[in-house]
């Protein structure tokens, strides 16, 4: 139960920690106060740190550095990894190039969000050799600043890369080989079940490395909470003040971290993060890129999984509508039994799924588009970055000789579950080129859904804007391009 921390060579032992403890709680209890708590919900990024993870691809072994929201990540998820916080950047009195640039560009005002920005920039520094505004915005999408208006921070990011070639190598580049072997060493430690005892309570934590192991543990402890990225579950701990008595971390289950990509479909293991699935998803479905860029924030995408996005059965998750429109299946496993369920039937009620006791999602099967199929996805939210959808719409159409013959449309935010709009599907088949498509779509949507008024949108906006999104899609189909506002910077 060890991880590497900042510039220290000696691994930190986590023996004795409560499995419910977040990384941020651990840091601050151990007087590493550089990382700040702004929201304790993974929304503001003041707590951002970077986690180095050992990646082996064939003969190549390297450390991948990814930003993380420490406020909602569980500290035990760090086992075998390298945690780098804002305290770990400077070497003695010498500031890290990222820190120097932030100082020079007046990138801090009150300074409270600054450690988080510095760490997101540190991840950018390690992951990119050149920079543009898109990359900067993407990498800082999970950091809120209330003082600077971001412009000085953007300037700082450009400054880092303008000077990168002349800069000294940071500690982590210089010591790369040493760090790799340290990580290999602590990774060799066997994954044993762990039990935390405190007075009269016992909390169990397991981190199986194989799927059979997971299946058998989960069958024995069906009440256990499965956790992968923890970006949703962490909120139960910090916001709802829950304490889980049995946690099974599936992040290290090898079989569930794989992606199979062939001509027919993509199979994505349930523990694959958005970060890891990004390239295969965008290659297969270029239309998804703009949605994925708006899916939560960079640090969330780094750790959150598609499996989790499905399993939590949120009515406002962004991936389920897309996957339903694509007619995806989920592979479920209980003990040694495996069954496939069409994703549209997986969601049975508000935050309720078809999963049986002791059953878990093993992988997701996403059929590819055939040559006469097209996909569009639209997201409506209050802010383009890091926001939950008011409406998320995915529409797949099938054409025959340029004529629409079939459609499959799924929505998030319109019902208590991610759901197909069957009336709308029928309506657009017969009215796709009708001049009053929008009104017909609106009437169909009213039959399909009775959305709620809530903090994100009124029911009426949800219905009407969905109808307009259909209109926008039809315009696009007939080559009248109405741009996606989220994607443009100048016009």
């Amino acid at each position, binding site marked *: 139960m060890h991880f590497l921390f900042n510039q220290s060579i000696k691994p930190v032992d986590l023996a004795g920690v409560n499995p419910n403890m977040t990384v941020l*709680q651990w840091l601050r209890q151990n007087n590493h*106060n*550089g*990382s*700040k*708590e702004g*929201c304790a*919900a993974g929304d*503001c990024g003041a707590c951002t740190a970077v986690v180095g993870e050992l990646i082996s691809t064939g003969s190549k072994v390297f450390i991948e550095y990814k930003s993380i929201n420490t406020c909602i990540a569980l500290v035990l998820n760090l086992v075998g990894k390298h945690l780098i*916080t*804002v*305290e770990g*950047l400077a070497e003695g009195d010498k500031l890290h190039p990222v820190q120097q640039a*932030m*100082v020079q560009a*007046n990138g*801090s*005002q*009150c*300074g*409270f969000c600054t450690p988080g920005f510095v760490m997101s920039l540190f991840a950018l520094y390690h992951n990119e050799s050149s920079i543009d*505004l898109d990359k900067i915005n993407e990498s*800082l*999408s999970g950091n*809120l*600043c*209330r*003082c*600077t*208006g*971001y*412009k*000085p921070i*953007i300037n700082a990011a450009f400054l880092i890369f303008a000077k990168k070639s002349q800069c000294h190598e940071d500690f982590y580049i210089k010591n790369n080989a040493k760090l790799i072997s340290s990580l290999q060493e602590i990774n060799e430690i066997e994954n044993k079940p762990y039990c935390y005892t405190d007075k009269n309570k016992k909390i169990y934590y397991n981190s199986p490395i194989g799927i059979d192991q997971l299946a058998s543990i989960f069958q024995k402890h069906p009440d256990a909470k499965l956790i992968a990225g923890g970006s949703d579950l962490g909120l139960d701990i910090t916001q709802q*003040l829950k304490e889980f008595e049995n946690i099974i971390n599936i992040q290290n289950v090898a079989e569930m971290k794989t992606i199979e990509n062939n001509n027919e479909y993509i199979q994505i293991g349930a523990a694959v993060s958005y970060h890891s699935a990004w390239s295969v998803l965008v290659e297969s479905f270029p239309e998804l890129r703009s949605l994925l860029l708006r899916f939560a924030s960079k640090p969330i995408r780094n750790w959150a999984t598609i499996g989790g996005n499905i399993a939590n059965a949120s009515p406002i998750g962004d991936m389920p509508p897309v996957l339903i429109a694509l007619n995806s299946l989920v592979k479920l496993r209980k003990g040694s039994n495996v069954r496939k369920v069409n994703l549209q039937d997986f969601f049975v009620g508000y935050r309720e799924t078809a999963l049986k006791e002791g059953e878990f999602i093993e992988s997701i099967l996403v059929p590819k588009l055939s040559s006469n199929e097209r996909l569009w996805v639209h997201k409506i939210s*209050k*802010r*383009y*970055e890091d*926001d*939950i959808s008011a409406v998320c719409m995915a529409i797949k159409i099938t054409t025959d000789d340029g004529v629409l013959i079939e459609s499959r449309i799924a929505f998030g935010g319109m019902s208590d579950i991610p759901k197909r709009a069957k009336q709308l599907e029928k309506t657009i088949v017969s009215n796709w080129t009708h001049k009053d498509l*929008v*009104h017909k779509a*609106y009437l169909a949507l009213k039959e399909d859904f009775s959305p709620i008024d*809530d*903090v*994100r949108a009124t029911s009426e*906006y949800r219905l*009407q*804007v969905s109808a*307009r999104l259909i*209109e*926008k899609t039809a315009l696009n189909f007939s080559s009248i391009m*109405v*741009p996606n*506002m989220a994607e*443009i*910077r*100048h*016009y």
Partner: protein
Amino acid sequence: MANTNNKSTDISSSIIGSSALHESASMHVQGNAPYIDDIPEPSGTLHVAFCLSNKAYGKIKSIDIDKAKKANGVHSVLLAEDIEHLNIGAIRLDEPLLADKEVLFYGQAVAAILADSHEIARKAASMVSVEIEELEPIITIDQAMSKKSFLEEPIKMSTGNAKGAIIKATNSIGGEFYVGGQEHYYLESQSALAIPTENGELLVHSSTQNPSEVQHLLAHVLNIPQHCIEVATRRMGGAFGGKESDSSQIACICALFAQQTKLPVKSKLPRRDDILMTGKRHDFKIEYQVGFDNKGLINGIIIDFAARCGYSFDLSLAIVYRALFHADNAYYLPNASFCGYMCKTNTSSNTAFRGFGGPQGMLAIENIIEEIANHLSVDAYKIRKLNFYQNNSNNITPYGQVIEDNIINELVSEIASDTGYERRRKDVEEFNNKSKYIKKGLALTPVKFGISFTKKFLNQAGALIHIYKDGSIYLSHGGTEMGQGLFVKVAQVVANEFGVELDRVKVSATSTAKVPNTSATAASSGSDLNGMAAKDACMRIKKNLVAFARKRYNIKEDEIVYSNSHVLLGGKKISFNKFISSAYFNRVELFSNGYYKTPKIHYDEINAYGRPFYYYSYGACLSEVVVDCLTGEYKLTKVDILHDVGASINPGIDYGQIVGGFIQGMGWLCSEELKWDDSGKLLTTGASTYKIPSIGDTPEHFNVKIKPDTSNHEDTIHKSKAVGEPPLMLAISVWIAIKNAISYAEQGRASELNAPASFEEVFFCLNNLNN
């Protein structure tokens, strides 16, 4: 100011006007600039969490604290009945520390839990059960107006005969619109750490803009003299007005527990609690009537402002006044009548927020100008120019202040010509003529913002400067550092006076033990007031040094020059350190206080007449947006700003204030929407539902220019101007640009646009499938 004591050159001239870095920048980026939650906790520190009301209005029938009290690690539970001096408040003592017999808003603190840790305290707080007999709450402005639920009689301001002028005018229009409030969302939530020292005395670290007020209220609540309490504030993780009065409650509760237990007590509010418990920017409903000629010259105007103030008085009176003071913005209104209603509602008590009512007042008149333009089908820019204040006539505000420093005409002409406004307008029109689904909008709006606290007595400040024997300088002043760069600016003033490098000046944490009876760091006044007070302290020390040097070196006063960390004494040049050391051995007093009060200001509240402002700050902003008429979504594509900061003490810091203020204002008018349900429960209690701008909202084309070669007309510190609040109102141009885009749409109903212009709000001004 004539320099009678000495001269300061070289370094001095480069320090003032240099972009010296924020004094904590290097600590910020390393995470070692401590905020209250980062201060090493003294041993035995206990933690506080609050149990909040889950009803907006009702009688408390019972509070069951048994379960919470018995929980492991809980020390005690505090209720209103346990507190002798229960009420606090900025102006009136009308805010109970804990709800007493009744709850007045959803989220009001009902009980405070003291426990071993923050987590235990929070869990115990959730175990308290409060039985409330619900009463019908007043939540909205409309409800308050119809029930005449006011904190105070309406306030009025008028000049000429507005009604008569409107009747006589060739054209007249009227309307109403709603301007939303704004959550501060400072990244560091409210925090306090109270440490008992000796003999019933306390040191209280408070994340506050207003240490003196916290001290004053602590003394009241603890029933001890103010000299028993030191309140210290090193830095805040953002404040924006939200820590002007709202930081007192948590400090008082911590101190009460510390007094009881004789142990250090700390609290930092969880984000949800912070948003629920504390006030926000006031939302306003604005109704107007305006009469104007065919060119758009305003003949008469009547505006009624109804502000949601919340359950208590707080600073609402001054805020609503400031809305009225800014309802003219940069326009001469010979016949104007403004009225402000202070609606008392069962919501948290709205409070100061950057601009302090000014932004709402300004948005009202800018909206009206846009309506006039739409009515006459002319470019609103022409209407704006036509109505601007002039220099020798048409220069008296509705409250009687003669504007002596007006630069709005030249400033707006400058930005219009810099940006090629006329061509940009033509481009937008041409684009819109050809584009059905996408419309562009363009707006160039001015800002004129009055500088000074409108309560005269607040316009005073103190400083205390020590020069130690080694020549290092320790500067204390009454202003607080919340990120705005006040500390470095005042340090620049001091370094300049002594001709020393900036590093030599250390700024202390703000403390009531160093400078007493200070005003809040607010109203953009921080560097104006504290810079002058610090300069005064320098002058007093220099006076002592002059007397010493004249005698010691047998020279005249004007032969003493402070420069490059040296002192020129006639023909002799010695290091500053040596000079100071020698002064010490010759028994010269090397420390002094300093004091400043703003001159010239006076204001008669009853007749709403006088000179409330020492001077005005000006700016203008051109914003361009592109709107998707199908969805209501839009993007801000271009922003150009020209802003007046007088002769800037620190352009780097000022630039940060302008850019940051603009984006914060944009958030207020665009994506930041507070929502309550009908029962008065606030629904937007976190960053996942309340959307402040994120990085992609910052436009790529974002040119910010500080007006060059300018200077304050009045004798302010180095002829600079205040910069904290005014830039926020530059963002009004974004909202107006959106409105402008809607007006270009075929069926757009631009008049119906409210603020914030959420995508949904814009959508329904463009579309309605039910019509």
